[in-house]
């Protein structure tokens, strides 16, 4: 079972409009709900490949939280959820067809109290007993400690889960690395504010990866210049993955797709390097979709993308 932990999921409300004009009444030409958040995106991508998937969530009270669960169940995903006070985080995504831009407004989301946290950890423990891969990603609700991913990874490792994969930012990322996850991937958009320098080239990526390994992670995947990722392991081995794709790509959901692909590869029994290659192929597939949704593709179509992934071991 692939188990994805999402402490702060979002209900994305996608509104497609012809043109956004500030201060004017604008009608949508299409709108729909879509469960979101890094953990949920990853779970939905993994489930598309027919892999038994469970999503552990902490949603807000009421209708939106319940709708989010129902939509995941409709996709065949098992859910185990706690309900917090206040409303589920809602992302209103305005897709403006006039200039192909996406504007997202994120709500504050619910608050996690001490009793909620205890219940959440209990639900996590129950859900990961038979997990092959435990994934966690994204932000945590207000009130949740910055050690949340550290605690989940420590718990999973004590149960015997070998493959903990995490993507996060800031203090959450640093603490998660200290729990020695199998794979860690930083949110590169916030690297500068936390590590004090931005990634400009391959050396910058390797520096960040080595820092995460120094903190405790077994392997680190770090992106640079949109189409490249480097995998660094604690043995010192470095593998560079480059996408041979000239046209512009849309990075929304690409990071989740990469880690979903890594998870799928591991679940299929591949080594991490091959799993990462598959992850790059899946990321490219998602990044080149012409639709707003990152789920509008067939699993078979990822195979042709693998041809565009160049792998090079660095010395």
């Amino acid at each position, binding site marked *: 079972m692939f188990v994805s932990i999402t402490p702060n999921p979002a209900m994305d409300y996608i509104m497609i409009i012809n043109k956004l004009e500030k201060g004017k009444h604008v009608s949508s030409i299409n709108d729909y709900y879509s469960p979101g958040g890094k953990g949920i995106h990853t779970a939905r991508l993994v489930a598309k490949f027919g892999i038994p998937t*469970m999503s552990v969530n902490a949603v807000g*009270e*009421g*209708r939106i*939280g*319940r709708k989010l*669960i*129902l939509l995941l*169940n409709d996709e*065949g*995903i*098992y*859910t*185990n*959820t*706690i*309900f*917090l*006070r206040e409303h589920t985080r809602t992302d209103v995504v305005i897709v403006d067809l006039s200039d192909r831009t996406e504007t997202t407004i994120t709500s504050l989301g619910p608050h996690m109290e001490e*009793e909620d946290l205890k219940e959440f950890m*209990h639900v996590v*423990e*129950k*859900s990961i*007993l038979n997990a092959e891969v435990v994934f966690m990603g994204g932000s945590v609700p207000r009130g949740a400690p910055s050690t949340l991913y550290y605690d989940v990874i420590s718990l999973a490792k004590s149960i015997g889960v070998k493959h903990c994969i995490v993507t996060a930012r800031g203090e959450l990322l640093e603490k998660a690395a200290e729990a020695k996850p199998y794979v860690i991937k930083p949110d590169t958009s916030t690297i500068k504010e936390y590590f004090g320098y931005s990634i400009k080239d391959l050396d910058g990526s390797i520096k960040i990866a080595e820092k995460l390994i120094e903190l405790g992670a077994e392997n680190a995947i770090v992106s640079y210049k949109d189409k490249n990722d480097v995998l660094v392991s604690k043995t010192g081995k470095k593998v560079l993955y480059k996408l041979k794709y000239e046209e512009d790509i849309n990075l929304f959901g690409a990071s989740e797709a990469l880690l979903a692909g890594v998870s799928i590869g591991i679940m299929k029994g591949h080594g991490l390097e091959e799993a990462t290659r598959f992850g790059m192929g899946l990321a490219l597939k998602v990044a080149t979709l012409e639709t707003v949704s990152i789920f509008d593709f067939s699993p078979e179509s990822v195979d042709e993308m693998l041809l565009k992934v160049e792998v090079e071991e660095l010395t």
Partner: protein
Amino acid sequence: MRVRDVMRRDLTSIPPHTKIGRVIELMERMRIAELIITDKNFKVKGIVTDGIIMRAALPRYFSYLDTTAYLPDLDEFARGLKELSEKEVSTIMLKDIYVINEDTKVLDLVEVMVGRRLKILPVTDKEGRLVGVVDRPSMFKKALAYDVEE
């Protein structure tokens, strides 16, 4: 068609040691009237409903009459509920409940749900672990989507 084809794969449930006050809070947050109780291995231990809580809060009334029509005011109910709130849900949950195996035919599921007037039915695997839930709206939704031979 089997039960696994129509069930919702929702394993949301609470442990038997949950305080009843917390159960009431969770029901209100989730806007539901029934909660399944499982142990740490997802083994189904029981179910609690708003009706069970009401009866437990007014044990003297419901032991004689199946109505609250003769209650003079809310005091007795509020007092009973407060006393109850610190107890564990395992003390009032319905233990002898219907569960259905995921391999059961849907026709048998409908018979059980209609025949027993059940609104919610936990679905289990061969080991008795919770693997999903069937409620009436989700059953109706699947039935409407079913291809009927003309």
